[in-house]
């Protein structure tokens, strides 16, 4: 019961954060990345259990691309279907800065209450 509550909380949090992380990952690199590469980078960065399933990365990539924050191109691959490589657009970079500010505000706000609420 407690376990599912925690998982649900994590899932609710991820809703918007996955988009922020994906934008940041793509903005930080010069090269274009495809879905699998991005998913693996995120998995590697988080040593413990993954915060979100890699399968959830793809629909968010598509949504960001549909909103014009990413552009993509298709490249044939030897190991399977052609891969879709993503790159962040100028609009996406501007959005990332705004997302970052919102995230920092939210984080500081939440932290202030949590520190006071939990006594060691």
């Amino acid at each position, binding site marked *: 019961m407690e376990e599912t509550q925690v998982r649900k909380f994590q899932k609710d949090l991820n809703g918007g954060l996955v988009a922020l992380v994906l934008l940041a990952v793509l903005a930080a690199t010069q090269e274009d990345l495809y879905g699998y590469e991005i998913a693996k980078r995120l998995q590697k960065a988080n040593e413990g259990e993954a915060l979100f*399933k890699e*399968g*959830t990365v*793809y629909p968010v990539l598509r*949504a960001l691309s*549909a*909103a014009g924050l990413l552009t993509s191109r298709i490249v044939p691959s030897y190991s*399977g*279907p052609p891969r879709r490589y993503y790159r962040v657009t100028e609009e996406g970079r501007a959005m990332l800065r705004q997302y970052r500010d919102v995230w920092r505000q939210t984080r500081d706000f939440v932290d202030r209450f949590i520190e006071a609420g939990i006594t060691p």
Partner: protein
Amino acid sequence: MTPAAPRSIDAYLKQLQAALADQDPSLIQDAAYDAEEYLRAEIAAHPDKSEADVLELIASTYGAPEEVAAAYRETEAKVKAALHAPTPQAAHTPGLLQRFFSVYSDPRSYTSLFFMLLALATGIAYFLIAVVGIALSLGLATLIIGIPFFLAFIGVVRVISLGEGRLIEAMTGERMPRRPVHPGPAMGLWAGIGAMLKDSRTWTTLAYFILMLPLGIAYFVIAVVGLSVGLSCIFAPLAGVLEHVGLVHASLSIEPAWLAATLPLGVVAILGIVVLTTVMHVARGVGRMHARIAKRLLVNPS
């Protein structure tokens, strides 16, 4: 009840498609495409493990089919809300007249009209590609270059079909695939050609290409005739005035003659507005109907 964990890529894709069965076929195609890209890359990254072993761990990395399906469902709902603003609905029930003219405030009417005009050009191109491709495929079938030609032809047809889908989604708002159809499990050359020949979508896509010529001609004629009749009627009084004051010296004639004899130009203009508005309605209707045809023929009803 959850089905047994999939042990192969095919089984995984089948479960994913089943979990999305109530969704738009285009979304199912996109989701299966993404999953296949990931699964094949994951298997290629672990050459020492068997397909079944890799798939065993998939539920904890990529996610089980139901989890992934849920993610697509949520994102699709959000994207749809963001991309397609709800069609404006008047708070009160609008009158018949207001409903008749509301077609001008719907952007789909204009894009559909544009699609009708464009359909002549795309229709001719698709028809030519399909007919030349089929004829050459049959003709070259006995020669060695017949096989690469057929494969290239089907590849080109699939790419064009994706492009046509994107065009239709832009023009009519109907959800169409945003990914090409996934090529399916790797198989030998002959098995691959056999699968292509057995795939009903290959044939329905070609049927669509051929159908686009008569449809394109019809759409183009309806749009051009409707627009020219409507607009010329609307501007008839203006032309009459200009001629009366001597600014233009065109001999203004209205055919048929009985119309000119019985109706004043003002009434002709009102008729023109009715004709033009009807054309906009027809365009919107054609857009919707065509989107349904395209979906039936171009998107796999899996």
